[in-house]
């Protein structure tokens, strides 16, 4: 589903991703971990073409991401659910509208949107905040809204960047269960996190990044 062949990405001064080879099968659930600045976010950004690789080849769901034309990028991204480390909720829209946006871009009908959004809000536990603006949510509530937005479109691939940084352990475990469920239904899931508790005892693949290189792999 996601394949990195010798991928390198550097910013002016420093190399964020160094000759990485990676192969994630359809339906897998994989964790990426490593110290701050190791390149986790950069690796995810390369997958959804927010960054262009300097070298190497990236294949995602059959698309050769490095060679993608500008106008094809939206269609790649429509297959990918994204949980951003910095949330990126639209401040002027309610939680409901923020989540509905994914579906509206996919041209889903408004009636359908209503049921799907309210289901997903219930799942992440912030249904009572449906009509609030992001600024009126606590940090953890915002994080759950972002997760809801990523899941609502039933993506083929889910990329989550530090999805539980602002969540208390109980809620974090609830979210992990959600990710596992959606993975069971066939979605490929890739989670970048510092939270060892999250992948401990899952039995899933964990990739350890350091200074842009894959240090080692293990099972959680």
């Amino acid at each position, binding site marked *: 589903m996601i394949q990195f062949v010798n991928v390198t990405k550097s910013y002016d001064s420093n190399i964020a991703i160094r000759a990485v080879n990676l192969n994630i099968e359809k339906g897998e659930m994989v964790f990426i971990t490593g110290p701050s600045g190791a390149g986790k976010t950069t690796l995810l950004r390369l997958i*959804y073409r*927010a960054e262009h690789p300097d070298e190497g080849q990236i294949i995602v769901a059959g698309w050769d991401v490095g060679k993608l034309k500008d*106008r094809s990028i*939206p269609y790649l*991204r*429509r297959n990918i659910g994204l949980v951003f480390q910095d949330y*990126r909720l639209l401040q002027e829209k309610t939680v409901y509208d923020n989540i509905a*946006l*994914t579906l509206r871009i996919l041209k889903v009908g408004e009636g359908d949107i209503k049921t799907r959004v309210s289901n997903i809000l219930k799942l992440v536990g912030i249904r009572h905040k449906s009509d609030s603006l992001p600024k009126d949510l606590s940090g953890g509530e915002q994080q759950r809204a972002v997760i809801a937005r990523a899941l609502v479109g039933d993506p083929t691939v889910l990329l989550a960047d530090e999805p539980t940084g602002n969540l208390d352990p109980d809620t974090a475990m609830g979210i992990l269960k959600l990710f596992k469920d959606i993975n069971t239904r066939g979605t490929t899931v890739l989670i970048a996190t510092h939270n060892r508790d999250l992948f401990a005892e899952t039995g899933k693949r964990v990739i350890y990044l350091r200074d842009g290189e894959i240090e080692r792999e293990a099972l959680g």
Partner: protein
Amino acid sequence: MSFFLFNSAIDSLWKGKWINLLTTLTVAVALIIIGIFSMLLFNLNLALRHWSEGFGIIVYLKDDINQSSIKAVDNALTSNRDILNVRFISKDDALNELKSQLGSFGDVLSGLEQNPLPSSFEIKLRPEALEPSKVKSIALKIKKMDGVDDVQYGERWVSILGSVNKGLRALAILLGTMIALGIIFIIYSSIKVLFYRRTEEVETLKLLGATKAIIRGPFLIEGGIIGFLGGAVSLLALRGVYRLFSFQIISMFPGLMAYPVSFLPVWSWFVFLLSGITLGLTGSFIALGRIRY
């Protein structure tokens, strides 16, 4: 789908209602300035036409001219397409006119044994022909006709008229360009406000898989609506200004304007609305710039 685009445009219009109202009013003010300027030009043009109707050329005939030659000159003048109106003034008519012009001193002419004044034609030209060089060539052509002694016309008057026309045109180009530049800047910077408020939104939309059309759509719709409203407001305001001032202007220029000041012609209303929309769309488009993923 397009319903969603339209919806989010309306939504965003409403959310930024104060800044949008401001933008609308700014566009309206700019269009009002253009409107007042057009109204002035339009009416000055009408007035010039009106005044120019008073302009005449006098064709003095030779003293020994016979009736058939007079007829020939008359025909030649009447068939000239630049000439609107031809009036024959006999020797007697001329003397009477001079007498009445001298007023109470006119009696001094009663003692004359012989009428020294020539007969003449008084010609009015079409307004279109009232250009210094044109008038000169017409006068020269007439002067060469058989039986014509001399041709007189207010050269100074024609040259003033020509200058005023030229001046107005230069002024129109100069001020018009300035104001047009001003409007472009206003719209651009107003839409930049919208855009700056929403760079984050645009970035996020890109990441969620929105196409360029989906991203641009609401901005363009918004810009178009603002432009349209600006145009409409300016028309209403102009109408108001016209109502308020037209009577005053008539009473201010009692000598100059014997007829009411005109509002802008109907077709130009549509030009206003359309240029509002076009300016709004163009401004939005420029402000959005090139969208890159």
